[in-house]
């Protein structure tokens, strides 16, 4: 093979530092050093919470940005993982609670969430566009009401409380610093996997199906199977977020998976931008900061109005969300981000 096969002609084989990129290295160092300057409140309520919801937004970004399937059921998938942790592990709600160790309960919870996600995908892939949004909203709403009214498994509207994050290696992982690093580790894993995967064979098939499913069939691809597999992968990401969420809150109830929360995930992904996996994390940070501090700025009566207005302004100025705003100030970034998956 000659050098002409290289995507950057004339350049030597890039080393791993170049591959990761200066932006990622800088961001990584900042995130690792963040606990040195942040209070416990900023570590968990802002940092950890943003990372968890960033992962949820990421699972939506993968489906919507690469696959063209907008889902409102990502919080439902996370909620299934959260309920599984409460049921398979320990809780103090005097219902179920099998007492499995975390290293069995967490993987099984994530797997069940991914299978549930595949099922939701399998139901909704027959639809397109706004009908996918409608059918996933219907599934999210139905799951919410089912959880609220079912006492045998979901413990009704009170749900499960007293779920504890694991403690091992002499570390209680619910303590602020360990929990922040736990969220950061899972987020980096999900982010890097999806960024890498966007240029994988499957990542390319997903983007091609988004652009033209009919042609993909005429190239020998089973479009339905590829879409359902995308839902499975998104379910793993969503399931990981759900496990962290229940460890963080210590409880899970129908309110966790309500329609409000489902819409929050959509807002996070849209505010951040669907073109690149970093978008949902930016969106999550903005939304979490607003939800935390808007109440101090404008009082309890009007804080949702402020959040709504900021959402409107961002989408009005830049339909591509924060990523699009960024691109306006850095033209070379915009050109780069046009390439799917960077």
């Amino acid at each position, binding site marked *: 093979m000659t050098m002409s096969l290289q995507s950057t002609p004339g350049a030597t084989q890039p080393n791993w530092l170049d591959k990761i990129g200066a932006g990622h290295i800088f961001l990584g160092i900042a995130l690792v050093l963040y606990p040195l300057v942040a209070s416990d409140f900023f570590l968990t309520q802002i940092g950890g919470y943003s990372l968890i919801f960033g992962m949820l937004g990421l699972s939506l970004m993968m489906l919507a940005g690469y696959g063209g399937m907008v889902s409102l059921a990502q919080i439902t998938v996370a909620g299934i993982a959260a309920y599984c942790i409460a049921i398979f592990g320990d809780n103090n709600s005097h219902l179920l609670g099998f007492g499995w160790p975390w290293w069995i309960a967490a993987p099984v919870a994530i797997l069940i969430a991914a299978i549930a996600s595949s099922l939701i995908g399998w139901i909704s892939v027959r639809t397109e566009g706004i009908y996918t949004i409608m059918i996933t909203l219907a599934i999210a709403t139905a799951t919410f009401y089912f959880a609220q009214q079912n006492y045998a498994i979901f413990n009704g509207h009170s749900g499960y409380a007293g779920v504890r994050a694991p403690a091992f290696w002499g570390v209680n992982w619910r303590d602020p610093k360990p929990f922040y690093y736990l969220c950061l580790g899972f987020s980096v894993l999900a982010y890097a996997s999806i960024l890498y995967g966007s240029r*994988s*064979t499957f990542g390319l098939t997903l983007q091609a199906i988004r652009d033209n499913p009919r042609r993909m069939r005429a190239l020998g691809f089973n*479009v339905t199977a590829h879409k359902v597999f995308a839902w499975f992968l998104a379910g793993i990401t969503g399931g990981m977020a759900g496990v962290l969420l229940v460890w963080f809150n210590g409880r899970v109830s129908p309110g966790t998976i309500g329609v409000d929360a489902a819409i929050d995930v959509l807002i996070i992904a849209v505010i951040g931008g669907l073109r690149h996996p970093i978008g949902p994390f930016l969106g999550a940070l903005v939304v979490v900061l607003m939800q935390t501090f808007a109440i101090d700025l404008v009082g309890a009566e009007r804080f949702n109005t402020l959040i709504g207005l900021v959402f409107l302004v961002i989408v009005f100025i830049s339909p591509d969300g924060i990523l699009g705003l960024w691109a306006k100030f850095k033209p070379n970034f915009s050109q780069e981000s046009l390439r799917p998956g960077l």
Partner: protein
Amino acid sequence: MAENDMASPLQGPGAYALELDGVARHFGALVALSGINMRIAAGERRAVLGSNGAGKTTLFNAVTGDFLPTAGRIRFFGEDITDLPPHERIRRGLRRTYQISQLFKGLSVLDSIFLACRGVSRRRFSLLRPRLNDVNRVQAESILHAVHLDSDRDALVATLSHGQQRQLEIALALAGAPRFILFDEPAAGLSPTERRDLVAILNGLPKHIGYVIIEHDLDVALRVSEYVSMMHNGRLFKEGTPQEIEADPEVQEIYLGGKHG
């Protein structure tokens, strides 16, 4: 019988690349296709002519499974494919291009052709990035060269000119090991130079690859085909060699817009 099986047109059921028996397609009360019977030998190159609305593209859609026929059977190299989903037909060696380009605007040219090669290969679900020496990638590079898109290999499909998009349409149909290709107006909107390139590409295809071509430009259609089927109002109404068809007064009446009338 030392002859290559696929090249000998007269033996067994597999001798025909494509057999249509009474294929019909209705859209409600509208009859788009009715009672189409067709035998096309392996390696044969056939043109399908007819005015707009004659049912040519509907015929292609029935063969590839984009839209299923409402009646009739379709056999591909002897195998009944009437009930197979489109992707299964493609994996058996059928290919097609579209009259209106059906491409992936967010992908690069090379990635598009790579997917076309991977679609009829293995590891379609691979979560790994294809390596530079991946067999499907190497195939894609050579197809890229064959359709003269080398200099646009990394360009986004959305940025290609109309002519380049038509070339990419053809590139996608050449991927893998096609046995039979359906070309739907490949010359639509091409310049005279591009048309000459197209004729060269079609005539340069390996002899065992047969095709059906829908083409309004008789200069192209009659130079790249051995046999011609005329369609009118959803029916096949005349077949013959390019010379016979060109000379037929009835054909001129219908297809050439009544040249002599």
